[in-house]
C-alpha cells in the first residue's frame, strides 16, 4: 500500500526545500536586516535612538492604545461569541460574517470611515467641535481605528471553541440554580480562558503593529505617533541616522512579535492542540 509518507523522495525534498527557501527569504532575511541595521551604529546609538523624545512618545502612545483596545475587544469578543453560541436569533450567520469585516477591508478604509464620521467636514464634526471634543488626531481616534481593525481577533477564536464545547455544562449549571454571572465565571470562563488569552495576544500584536488605519486618523501630528507611524517618520527623515533610528524602533516591535509568537506557541502546545495530541 502506498501512503502519503512514502511519496517519492524527490517530491518531498522539493516541497521542503521550497518552503525553507520561502521562509529564509521572507522571514529570516528581513529579521536579520532589521537587527543588523538597528545595531549598525553601535549599541550606544541604538539606546539613544530608543530614548529619544519621539521614540519614547511613540512607545508610550502604542502602549496606551493597546491597553485601551485589548480589554475593549476582549469584552466585545466574549459577548459576541456568547451571544452567537447560546442565543437563537435571526441573522446569526450574517452577524458571524459581519464580525470578520475588518479582516477583509483595507485598514485604510477602516480609518477613513472614522475620519469621515468624526472629521471637521464629517457627520459629527460640527457637533464635536462645538463641544470641544477632539477625536481625530488624538487618542480617541487612534483607539477607535485600532479597535476596529483588531475587533475580530478574540471573537473569531472563541466562536468555534465555544460551539465545539456546546451548552450542556451551562444548562446543567442553570438547573442547579446558577445565575448568569455565576454561570459565566464558574462554568464558561474556565473552559475558554486559554482561548481568550490567545485572542488577546493576537489582538495585542495587531494593535501594536497597526499602521494603515491609524495613519489616517492620526494624520501627521508630531506627538500623536504610534510606533509604526514613528518608524515611517524616522525612515522618511533624511540621513543614515534616521534610518538607524527607524530600524532601532522596528527592532522593538520585532521583539514584541517574537514574544507574542512564543506565548502563542506555548499556549497552542499546552491547551489548544487537538484532543488526540493533548498530553494527559
Amino acid at each position, binding site marked *: 500500500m502506498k501512503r502519503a509518507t512514502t511519496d517519492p523522495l524527490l517530491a518531498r525534498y522539493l516541497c521542503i526545500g521550497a518552503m525553507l527557501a520561502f521562509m529564509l527569504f521572507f522571514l529570516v532575511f528581513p529579521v536579520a536586516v532589521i537587527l543588523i541595521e538597528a545595531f549598525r551604529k553601535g549599541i550606544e546609538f541604538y539606546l539613544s535612538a530608543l530614548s529619544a523624545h519621539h521614540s519614547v512618545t511613540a512607545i508610550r502612545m502604542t502602549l496606551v492604545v493597546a491597553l485601551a483596545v485589548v480589554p475593549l475587544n476582549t469584552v466585545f469578543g466574549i459577548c459576541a461569541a456568547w451571544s452567537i453560541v447560546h442565543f437563537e436569533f435571526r441573522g446569526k450567520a450574517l452577524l458571524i460574517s459581519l464580525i470578520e469585516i475588518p479582516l477583509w477591508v483595507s485598514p485604510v478604509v477602516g480609518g477613513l470611515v472614522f475620519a469621515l464620521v468624526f472629521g471637521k467636514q464629517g457627520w459629527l464634526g460640527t457637533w464635536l467641535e462645538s463641544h470641544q471634543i477632539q477625536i481625530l488626531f488624538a487618542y480617541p481616534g487612534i483607539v477607535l481605528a485600532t479597535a476596529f481593525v483588531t475587533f475580530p481577533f478574540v471573537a473569531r477564536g472563541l466562536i468555534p471553541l465555544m460551539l465545539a464545547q456546546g451548552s*450542556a455544562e451551562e*444548562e446543567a449549571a442553570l438547573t442547579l440554580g446558577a445565575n448568569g454571572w455565576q454561570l459565566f465565571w464558574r462554568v464558561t470562563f474556565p473552559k475558554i480562558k486559554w482561548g481568550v488569552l490567545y485572542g488577546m495576544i493576537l489582538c495585542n500584536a495587531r494593535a501594536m503593529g497597526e499602521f494603515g488605519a491609524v495613519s489616517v486618523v492620526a494624520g501627521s501630528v508630531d506627538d500623536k505617533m504610534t510606533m509604526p507611524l514613528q518608524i515611517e517618520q524616522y525612515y522618511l527623515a533624511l540621513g543614515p541616522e534616521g534610518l538607524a533610528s527607524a530600524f532601532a524602533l522596528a527592532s522593538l516591535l520585532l521583539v514584541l512579535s517574537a514574544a507574542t509568537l512564543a506565548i502563542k506557541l506555548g499556549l497552542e502546545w499546552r491547551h489548544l492542540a487537538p484532543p488526540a495530541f493533548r498530553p494527559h
Partner: protein
Amino acid sequence: MSVAVSHIFKRFETFPALRDVSLEVQTGELLALLGPSGSGKTTLLRVIAGLENADAGQVTFAGEDVTQKSAYERRAGFVFQAYALFQHMSVFENIAFGLRVLPRKKRPDAEAITRRVTDLLQLIQMEDFGKRLPSHLSGGQRQRVALARALAIEPRVLLLDEPFGALDAKVRKELRKWLRHFHDRTHLTSLFVTHDQDEAFELADRVVIFNEGRIQQIGIPSELRQNPANDFVRAFLEV
C-alpha cells in the same frame, strides 16, 4: 411534589416537537416517558426543567404556575444524557456546585457543604473519588456523580434524560436497580426519558407512551400490555 403540564405546544422551526401534551406526575411517583427517538420526550423534559420555553401551555410545580420562571429559579434536579459534568471541576466540586451558587443568605457554610457532599458521595458509593476529575471516571461513575450533583440542591423533582443510555448492559442493570431502590427510600417525584421498554416497565410506576409529539397512552405496565390504546402502542410494544 406533583408536577403537571397542560396543553403544551412546542415547535422547532417547522418541526412540531410537542403537540398539546398534558400530563401529571403525582407526588412520589416514578414515571417513565417511553417512545422512539424524535418523539418529543426529551423536549417535554426540558420544558419542565425550564431549559426550553413552550410556545403555549402551562407548567405547574405543586400547583404553582412556573411557566414564566427560568430554569435557575425552578431548580429541578436534571440528569443529562451525556452527564454534562463540569470537566474542570473535581467530583467534589461538581456535587457542591448547586450549594455554592446559592444566594449568600441561603448558602450553607463550608463545613455543611462538605458534610452534604460527603453524604452524597457515600450514597453513590464513591467516597474515595471526591478529588478525581470527571474525565478520569467510568461511564457508570459519571452517571452517579451527575445524579448526586442534581440531588445536592434537594430538588423537588428529579428529571432524568436517558439516564442509562450510554452505559453497557451490566452497569445499566445495576444502576437501574440502584435507582429504583433509591426512589423507594426517598419517594422523590421523578420523571425519566427512555426508548428502552424493558427499562421503562421494570423501573417505573407508570409509563407514558409518546409518539410524534403526542401522548399515546398512560398506564401501569400491565395495563399497557393488555389494553394498548391504538395501533402505534400495539406495534411499539409488540403485543
